[in-house]
């Protein structure tokens, strides 16, 4: 208001200067203060412009009323300006506007012209007084605004600051008021009659203001609030809580012309909203276009993209929720147009690089647009081969009509979404072009941001499109790609679906092999319906039944989709078969086809390898597979899932500590993954699944075949039979099932399945039935003929060469049993045995190859005279090696005899020599017993076997030529039973009339038969035992006597007793005496004897000399007495000490070293015994010890007399067994010693 001319002159500067400096804007509700640039529109004051009550327009609201005056004259002021001002003020007051400012512009030039002017302050003061009674700051002086002076500048600044402050004050005040009003309005929204559109316009006003103030953020908030409010209403409506005004939005969609983002404000739509005529899409479009504009102002184009996607989805959702009727395709058009519009808008405001780096945000729109175009295409019949029909065309026309006319602002751009859509819908070709462009762009984008899965999904759609367009070769690659992806991640349903498409594609392409493979996979897919599976199965069968033009052509498919091998069973179960034998293999195949499938042939390819030592291998195999029963189970086929999961190594994590080297404090700690390189490997390369190639069909010479098999769904048993030909190992490699030209191949059978074929030489085994064969009685021997590859013909026989001492007993009921290779009895036949002098012929029963014939024969080893070894037992000089042996052991080992039988076998020109070892069941020993000069021969028969025998007819005869000798048996029983491990003794008295011979040869014989077996077919030979007894005639009688010390009745321990030994010669000179010890005097002979008193039981201590050499006259009744003293060490009845007699041979006599050595040993043992005595006998230690040491030193010297023990028969100790009563003495210390 005020001077219009003045304002116009100042206005340019003012409008330029005002926004130059920012102002701090403090806002209510604790919102953060912001620096804003004020820019205002100056309008000439008109009363009409003042807001009326209830006006909601904020944008055009006058915030500050400024009165401009240039008045510098009081008169003028009083006359016009004051009135004017008052009027102005009144008007303002009437509208309750308190925001005003009076600007007094001073002009020096004017002042100069008028000299009578009042001081300039006066006018200002006047105005201040008149109008600004309280608010003196409402009046501002602006001096010389058009001049360029410091004063001017200063005043401008002051003015501007004032102006800004006041403007802002007013603005804040009014804004607050407006917001309050708006809120009030919002709170009324539950009231009936509330209109969203009205409210929308109010809040938008606020947004406009913010936008004007360049507070885009705040403006956006206003729109977002509106958005949210609307969305909430829609959701509530969906929940049944409908507001009346919403019903308006539910009108059918008539126009779907997409978003318009090029204009900052789409006034057209805004008017619709204002008129409350906007449809949902209009409202949404407008709202979004505003949001978009603001976001672009905010430099956030990516949010636009994101919000756009959200908007498009939620709009579709809302339309559905509000149950708005939408013509088919309309929404698709709208979405498509909107997507493209958004994209183009974004492209318009960003450069290429930005777009490329933000594909992630826009790709959603791309794919959405693609999808929508696709559905439009389907809707309008643009995808089909034939092109759209009339109905489709009608629909297209309707859709295009709904688009309305193209907007003027895009009309001249070639690529506008509108044009695109129109073009795409206009013809099939154009649609294809657009759709392909979009799809490829989308796929490319998805791929570039790594959203492979999404790319595959789009690709799959594209493939579907291609299929519709009958260009399967293009579709295939996308389908394969998608399938690979789904397979790698194991999503079953997508796999199935994609495969189905792929199958169709391959069918069109004529890729028979691939098609059949896919079909077989599909036919076994449980996610498909039965009908579909049957269809695909039928496809395969149809193909298989077609006559193929090239007969050799075959199509190899992997087996795993068709069927899988479950188990395999060999018969014989150990999977070992001999050459020519029949091996049957039974496999269980689970067919995964939905219907029974007839296969022409099922074959197993077998790889043959020759094993050099196949027999050993066979044995190994047998032991290894004994428990498996010949069934090999194959692991249940893991559905064609990637193995990569399993092969993926587990994380290997280790803790890691790093300590500082100086103070060992912990610096860093962490976890290290050791196998990063394994884990972070690319996955795609590792798992190449479903490789159709590489199915090499192995053509081996060895094939197990089974023709014309119908595989029912589920497990099927298929049996193969084969006759083994060459020995070696056969490995089952491949399983093929063929129907016509279609071959299903299981390329590897795992675990490895093998069977072995062996060839065996015929063999003969002969072994005793019992542990050992006993000589003398019939024993059974088992003959085992393993025929091997030899077939025993009629007339084949074993020729046994006879051994004299071994008889083969032929019994009538001998049977031979023929067993098969698996120990099953096949047949039995009577054995025919023919014996001649030299040869026993056993005719074998007829038996096929690889069978076993078993029969038993009884053999009898004639007891031959046992080796002379046993005799020497009781001779004075035992064999040295015998002596070192363990006595126990020798007594129990049986004497054995070996019989070698040579057998001529029909299969060999060489004869087999078989050794049979028979043991003599008895061990016989003899001994000579003396009683004075009477002699007895005792024979001890020890049964060493486990059997019991019946002994009879024991007899002892003298085989020597001495006729006057008589053997009188003292045995009473003629029949005697000898138990296992028990001895039986036989005694004969020896009687003679003349001088006995120096040696006696005897033969002991007895009959024996097994006690259990009563009847024996053959008469058994008696058991004989020959032995020789020498020097059995008694030459000396030794008599020892102990008498108590004189004056005592009994011997006492510890007291010396006298021992008297008398040695009496019983015969005159005999042959046996003639040896080195015999010395011949003039009229009589004498021999030198050494006696020795030894007490082995330590009962006696011999005092003084215990041994001595005597010269004994060789004459009957010549007696030599020796007296010595002994001391009893214990009380009781003590046996007398032993008195031994030796021949004392002079040193010069030439004897064998052996004997010499023996006597040495005897001496040694003697001396050891003596040592034992010495321990106890303290009194006699010295004398005897010295003597012993002397004698041992004597031994060392070379010329040394030797001792020879007299044969047992020549010395009779008449005091053997005598005992002397010793009573204990009162001496205690002796007892003590004995205790210790």
């Amino acid at each position: 208001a005020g001077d219009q001319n003045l304002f116009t002159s100042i206005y340019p500067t003012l409008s330029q200067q005002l926004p130059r400096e920012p102002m701090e804007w403090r806002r209510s509700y604790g919102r953060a203060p912001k620096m804003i640039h004020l820019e205002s529109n100056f309008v000439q004051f008109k009363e009409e412009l003042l807001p009326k009550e209830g006006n909601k327009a904020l944008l055009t609201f006058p915030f500050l009323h400024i009165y401009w005056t240039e008045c510098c004259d009081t008169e003028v002021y009083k006359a016009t300006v004051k009135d004017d001002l008052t009027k102005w003020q009144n008007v303002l007051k009437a509208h309750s506007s308190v925001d005003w400012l009076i600007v007094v512009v001073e002009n020096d030039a004017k002042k100069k012209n008028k000299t009578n002017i009042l001081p300039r302050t006066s006018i200002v003061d006047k105005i201040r007084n008149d109008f600004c009674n309280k608010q003196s700051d409402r009046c501002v002086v602006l001096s010389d605004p058009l001049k360029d002076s410091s004063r001017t500048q200063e005043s401008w600044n002051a003015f501007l600051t004032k102006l800004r402050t006041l403007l802002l004050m007013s603005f804040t005040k009014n804004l607050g008021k407006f917001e309050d009003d708006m809120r009030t309005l919002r709170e009324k929204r539950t009231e009936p009659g509330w209109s969203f559109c009205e409210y929308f316009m109010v809040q938008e006003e606020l947004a406009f203001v913010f936008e004007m103030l360049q507070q885009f953020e705040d403006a956006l908030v206003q729109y977002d609030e509106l958005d949210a409010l609307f969305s909430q209403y829609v959701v509530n409506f969906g929940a049944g809580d409908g507001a009346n005004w919403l019903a308006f939005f539910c009108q059918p969609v008539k126009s779907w012309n997409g978003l318009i983002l090029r204009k900052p404000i789409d006034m057209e739509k805004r008017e619709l909203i204002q008129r409350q005529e906007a449809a949902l899409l209009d409202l949404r479009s407008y709202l979004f276009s505003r949001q978009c504009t603001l976001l672009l102002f905010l430099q956030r184009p990516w949010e636009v993209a994101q919000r756009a996607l959200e908007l498009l989805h939620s709009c579709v959702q809302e339309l559905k929720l509000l149950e708005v009727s939408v013509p088919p395709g309309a929404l698709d058009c709208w979405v498509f147009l909107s997507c493209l519009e958004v994209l183009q808008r974004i492209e318009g405001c960003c450069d290429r690089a930005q777009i490329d780096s933000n594909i992630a945000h826009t790709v959603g729109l791309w794919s959405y647009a693609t999808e929508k175009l696709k559905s439009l295409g389907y809707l309008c019949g643009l995808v089909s081969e034939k092109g759209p029909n009339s109905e489709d065309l009608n629909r297209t026309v309707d859709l295009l009509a709904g688009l309305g006319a193209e907007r003027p602002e895009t009309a001249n751009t070639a690529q506008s979404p509108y044009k695109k859509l129109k073009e795409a819908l206009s013809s099939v070709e154009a649609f294809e072009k657009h759709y392909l462009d979009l799809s490829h762009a989308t796929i490319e984008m998805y791929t570039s941001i790594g959203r492979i899965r999404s790319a595959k999904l789009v690709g799959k759609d594209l493939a579907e499109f291609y299929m519709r367009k009958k260009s399967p070769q293009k579709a295939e690659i996308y389908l394969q790609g998608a399938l690979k992806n789904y397979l790698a991640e194991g999503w079953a349903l997508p796999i199935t679906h994609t495969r189905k498409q792929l199958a169709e594609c391959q069918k069109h392409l004529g890729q028979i092999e691939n098609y059949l493979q896919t079909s077989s996979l599909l036919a076994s897919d449980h996610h498909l319906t039965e009908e579909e599976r049957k269809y695909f199965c039928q496809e395969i069968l149809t193909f298989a039944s077609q006559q193929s033009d090239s007969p050799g052509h075959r199509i190899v498919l992997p087996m795993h989709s068709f069927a899988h091998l479950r188990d395999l069973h060999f018969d014989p179960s150990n999977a070992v078969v001999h050459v020519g034998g029949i091996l049957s293999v039974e496999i269980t195949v689970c067919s995964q086809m939905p219907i029974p499938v007839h296969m022409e042939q099922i074959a197993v390819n077998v790889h043959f390898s020759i094993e050099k030592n196949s027999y050993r291998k066979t044995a190994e195999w047998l032991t290894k597979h004994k428990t498996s029963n010949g069934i090999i189970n194959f692991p249940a086929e893991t559905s064609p899932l990637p193995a990569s999961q399993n092969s993926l190594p587990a994380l290997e994590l280790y803790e890691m500590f790093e300590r500082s080297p100086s103070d060992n404090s912990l610096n860093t700690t962490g976890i290290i993954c050791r196998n990063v390189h394994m884990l972070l490997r690319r996955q795609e390369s590792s798992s190449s699944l479903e490789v159709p190639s590489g199915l090499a069909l192995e053509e081996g010479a060895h094939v197990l075949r089974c023709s014309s098999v119908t595989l029912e769904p589920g497990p099927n048993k298929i049996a193969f039979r084969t006759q083994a030909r060459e020995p070696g190992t056969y490995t089952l490699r491949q399983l093929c099932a063929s129907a016509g030209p279609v071959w299903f191949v299981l390329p590897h059978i795992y675990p490895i399945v093998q069977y072995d074929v062996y060839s065996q030489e015929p063999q003969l085994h002969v072994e005793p039935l019992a542990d050992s064969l006993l000589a003398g009685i019939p024993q059974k021997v088992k003959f085992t003929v393993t025929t091997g590859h030899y077939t025993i013909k009629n007339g084949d026989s074993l020729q046994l060469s006879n051994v004299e001492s071994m008889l083969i007993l032929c019994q009538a009921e001998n049977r031979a049993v023929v067993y098969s290779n698996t120990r099953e009895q096949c047949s039995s036949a009577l054995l025919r045995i023919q014996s001649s002098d030299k040869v026993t012929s056993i005719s074998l029963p007829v038996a096929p190859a690889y069978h076993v014939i078993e029969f038993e024969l009884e053999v009898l080893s004639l007891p031959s005279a046992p080796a002379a070894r046993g005799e020497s037992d009781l001779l004075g000089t035992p064999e040295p090696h015998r002596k070192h042996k363990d006595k126990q052991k020798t007594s129990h080992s049986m004497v054995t005899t070996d019989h070698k039988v040579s057998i001529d076998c029909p299969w060999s020109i060489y004869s087999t020599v078989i050794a049979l070892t028979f043991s003599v069941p008895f061990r016989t020993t003899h001994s000579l017993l003396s009683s004075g000069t009477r002699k007895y021969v005792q024979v001890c028969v020890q049964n060493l076997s486990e059997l019991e025998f019946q002994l009879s007819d024991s007899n002892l005869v003298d085989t020597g030529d001495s006729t006057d000798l008589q053997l009188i048996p003292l045995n009473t029983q003629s029949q005697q039973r000898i138990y296992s491990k028990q001895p039986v003794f036989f005694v004969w008295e020896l009687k003679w009339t003349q001088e006995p011979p120096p040696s006696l040869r005897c033969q002991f014989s007895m009959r024996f038969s097994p006690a259990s077996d009563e009847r024996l077919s053959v008469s058994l030979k008696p058991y004989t035992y020959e032995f020789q007894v020498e020097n059995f005639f008694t030459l000396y009688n030794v008599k020892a006597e102990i008498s108590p010390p004189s004056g005592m009745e009994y011997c006492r321990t510890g007291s010396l007793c006298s021992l008297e030994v008398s040695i009496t010669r019983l015969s005159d000179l005999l042959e046996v005496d003639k040896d080195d010890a015999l010395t011949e005097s003039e009229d009589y002979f004498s021999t030198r004897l050494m006696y020795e008193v030894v007490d082995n039981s330590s009962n006696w201590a011999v005092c003084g000399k215990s041994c001595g050499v005597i010269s004994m006259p060789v004459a009957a009744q010549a007696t030599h007495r020796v007296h010595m003293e002994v001391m009893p060490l214990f009380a009781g009845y003590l046996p007398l000490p032993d008195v031994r007699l030796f021949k004392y041979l002079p040193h010069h006599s030439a004897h064998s070293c052996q004997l010499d050595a023996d006597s040495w040993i005897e001496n040694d043992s003697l001396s050891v015994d003596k040592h034992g005595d010495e321990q106890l006998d303290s009194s006699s230690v010295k004398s005897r010890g010295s003597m012993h040491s002397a004698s041992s030193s004597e031994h060392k010297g070379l010329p040394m007399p030797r001792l020879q023990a007299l044969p047992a028969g020549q010395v009779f100790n008449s005091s053997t067994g005598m005992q002397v009563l010793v009573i204990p003495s009162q001496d205690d210390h002796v007892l003590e010693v004995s205790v210790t």
Partner: protein
Amino acid sequence: MSGSFYFIIVGHWLSTPPVFEMESLPAEKAESKDDHRHLNQFLAHAALDLVDKNMWLSNNMYLKPVDKFNVCFVSAFVTAGHMRFIMLHDIRQEDGIKNFFTDVYNLYIKFAMNPFYEPNSPI
């Protein structure tokens, strides 16, 4: 108003088949079940890309709706062990879905505690 829901649990290895899937359809749509199922899997599968991406951007296990497809929203929930729960739903109902995810998570943890359960194998 009943929406249709499709819920699927995907293991955390790249190459594992879905651990669990379940579908709940409103009664009136039950007949179209078979068509939907593979479609749902396709969508869930495609959404995995976004789930994998978003889970690194958020601290929460619940990832809001990550993807949209036509009328479907895809919500996801990623457990601490990177099991991915994915839900396809056609109406917005964040709270309900979040609660559902939390419940399922509790159940899943109980299940996974079972010593006889091998992680990533189908439930």
